[in-house]
């Protein structure tokens, strides 16, 4: 059975959304998604609801209490997946494929502008036995970026190229608060936040909410003439910091292998990739983890990730241009992919999300029109 995206709605993608609460953001995104899906009524047309969020980001213990009302999920089968929104899509696909639901709604929201102590919150995600008290939350990314440079003979200029490409691509995206027309020198001349990464190599946080309406094939055909199909989706977790392979995105390798199998796709058919670029080097690492390139550094230098190249990578800007909305990150990449497919620019795309430091979990989806 195939599963389709029949509606998608978003709100925010701004550094600060002080005029709305997180619940109002959810509501705004949900209304838009239901309208996009052909004006469905969540109270009668939707079978199950999934919300993706984490307690510590919300500042609420048992934050899922607040999931149902703004999306129409009260007194319905509503649940929370404490993970990236793309993991929620994976669960939604399982709801439909298992026969549990015809229509499932997946929601995620993030309001990092409310978090006054981001460094401390991120530190709480480290194993309590080994919490390092790092003053710089990006230290682990710095370590990994260095390892990546050594493994792939990458240079600082390569990372800067990713930044320039994505920020420029973001100029085409109405959600890209951090899009700009900068050049390599602009990046290379910045001070290091943590070697070898400058503040421009690191995506900034952004407030956002995204709601996605999924439907089984039969139902999707009733709601829309232009469904976006989820051909394959899978997630994988590597291990702990001590045992994961720094420099290699092993989680992407495992997840993409399974997602491609499920989608029965030949990688060459994929013409666009919307991949996590929380840090500039991560885009290159993830492109390799997804088997979209044997040598991402070389392909980047040769312009293969630009329009007209082998595969467009983050053609609508990625997190470096749009910002990183915590658990909405995966859905923001999916949203870009859906828009790109609906515009008819490409027929098939891959979406790949990572949960950010200090985790080693990735989700990969193959979508087509």
């Amino acid at each position, binding site marked *: 059975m195939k599963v389709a995206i029949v509606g998608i709605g978003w709100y925010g993608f701004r550094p600060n959304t002080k005029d709305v609460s997180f619940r109002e953001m959810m509501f705004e995104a949900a209304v838009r998604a239901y309208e996009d899906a052909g004006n469905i009524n969540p109270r009668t047309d939707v079978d199950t609801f999934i919300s993706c969020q984490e307690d510590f980001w919300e500042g609420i*213990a048992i934050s899922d*209490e607040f999931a149902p009302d703004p999306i129409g999920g009260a007194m319905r089968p509503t649940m929370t997946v404490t993970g990236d929104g793309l993991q929620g899509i994976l669960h939604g696909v399982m709801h439909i494929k298992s026969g549990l639901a015809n229509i499932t709604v997946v929601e995620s929201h993030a309001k990092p502008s409310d978090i006054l102590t981001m460094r401390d919150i991120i530190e709480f995600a480290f194993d309590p036995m080994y919490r390092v008290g790092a003053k710089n939350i990006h230290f682990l990314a710095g370590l990994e970026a260095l390892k990546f440079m050594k493994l792939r003979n990458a240079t600082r200029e390569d990372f800067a190229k990713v930044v320039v490409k994505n920020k420029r691509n973001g100029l085409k995206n109405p959600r890209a608060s951090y899009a700009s027309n900068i050049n390599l020198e602009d990046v290379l001349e910045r001070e290091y936040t943590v070697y070898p990464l400058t503040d421009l190599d690191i995506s900034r946080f952004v407030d956002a909410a995204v709601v996605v309406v999924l439907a089984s094939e039969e139902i999707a055909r009733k709601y829309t003439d232009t469904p976006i199909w989820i051909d394959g989706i899978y997630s994988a977790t590597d291990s702990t910091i001590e045992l994961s392979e720094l420099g290699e995105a092993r*989680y992407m390798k495992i997840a993409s292998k399974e997602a491609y199998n499920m989608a029965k796709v030949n990688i060459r058919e994929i013409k666009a990739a919307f991949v996590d670029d929380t840090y500039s080097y991560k885009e290159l690492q993830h492109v390799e983890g997804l088997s979209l390139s044997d040598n991402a550094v070389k392909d980047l230098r040769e312009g293969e990730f630009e329009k007209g190249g082998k595969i467009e990578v983050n053609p609508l800007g990625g997190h470096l241009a749009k910002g990183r909305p915590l658990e909405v990150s995966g859905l923001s990449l999916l949203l870009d992919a859906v828009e790109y497919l609906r515009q008819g620019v490409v027929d098939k795309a891959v979406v790949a999300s990572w949960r950010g430091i200090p985790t080693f979990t990735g989700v990969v989806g193959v979508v087509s029109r």
Partner: protein
Amino acid sequence: MKTNLYFRRVAVIGAGLTLFRRRMLETPQELAWEAVRKALDEAGLELKDIDCVVIGSAPDAFDGVHMKGEYLAHGSGGVRKMVSRVFVGGATGVMVPNTAWYHVASGLCEKVLAVAEEKMSPARPHPQSVFRYIWDPITEKPLNPNLIWIFAMEMHRYMYVNKITKEDIALVSVKNKKNALNNPYAQAAANITVDDVLKSEVLVWPVQLLDTSPVSDGAAAMVIVSEDVARRYTDTPVWIEGVGWTLDNTEWTGRELAYPRYLEHAARMAYKMAGIERPNKEIDVIEPYDPFDYKELHHIEGLMIARRGEAPKLLKEGVFDIDGDIPSSPSGGLLGVGNPIAAAGLMKTISIYWQLKGTAGRMQVKKPVHTGLAQAWGDLMQASTVIVMRN
């Protein structure tokens, strides 16, 4: 909601529990692994055979870890596999096997570990301090409510609407703590009387100390597989026949607290899937969630095992005793075994699994059983999860 027309059959073939205790020395990861190891042993599988892991744990603040699913992944055997953590507050323990069910039923996974862990003891001075942060940050948090206050309101309302006495309710605590004497994992087993409950310390009237379950650490795990796998590994699989869950709205102050309508919805979903039309006739053994003694009665009514207000009468008649018509909480429940929040719900599911498999030992109910049900409850008194199993 769709009905069960073409689900792949899904079975439980192994389960494991740690002791439920206050202040376990093991880390959360070690607790999870102990339960997983036992579940794998019972199933006859190795970790390498598992393709997906579903984790459940209640507020992150109990363990003091952000992104707790990621943290628990390693101890739960989720290395280089598909791992997810699901969360519906206190109802998480039953949401974990429900989620594992659709992992298999969807065809995405064949052999799934369902793991729930909770360490409540690191919260100092008491887990109640974590519950201070479950409220609406604008309208409720400034009042600094205590969780027991709202349960006291709910218990009071249940007693008032249905004309139920404290003595009627205390019988649940007496029954469950006594049942727990047969449970080797139990933390709070005891031979107490109704009088002991009524004389125990008043926390918030009408909630007294022996009306409540203790603060606990513990973990539980199940191996949940497709039909093909189950047939290869065991002659006595226990089938998951129905799953259901519902969240009511967040505004608990606007609800009729005397009856858990969200549970009725969750139960109807599970019953429809399992083809159950008369739950009080068709279900042989139940494990309703009992963090407080009144909640077991409340939930028995929400599950439609008894009519509204009728559960205390049936309890007094012995219907829910271990040798009664519908034994309830033969494990000893949360009141007797302990309440490591998410692990407690999975413990209840495991209890039903062992009852249906016939390996519950001294906990085994007297009559033959073929259909069993476990249930959990949580969030702002708004979430319920239900699982129906058959042998």
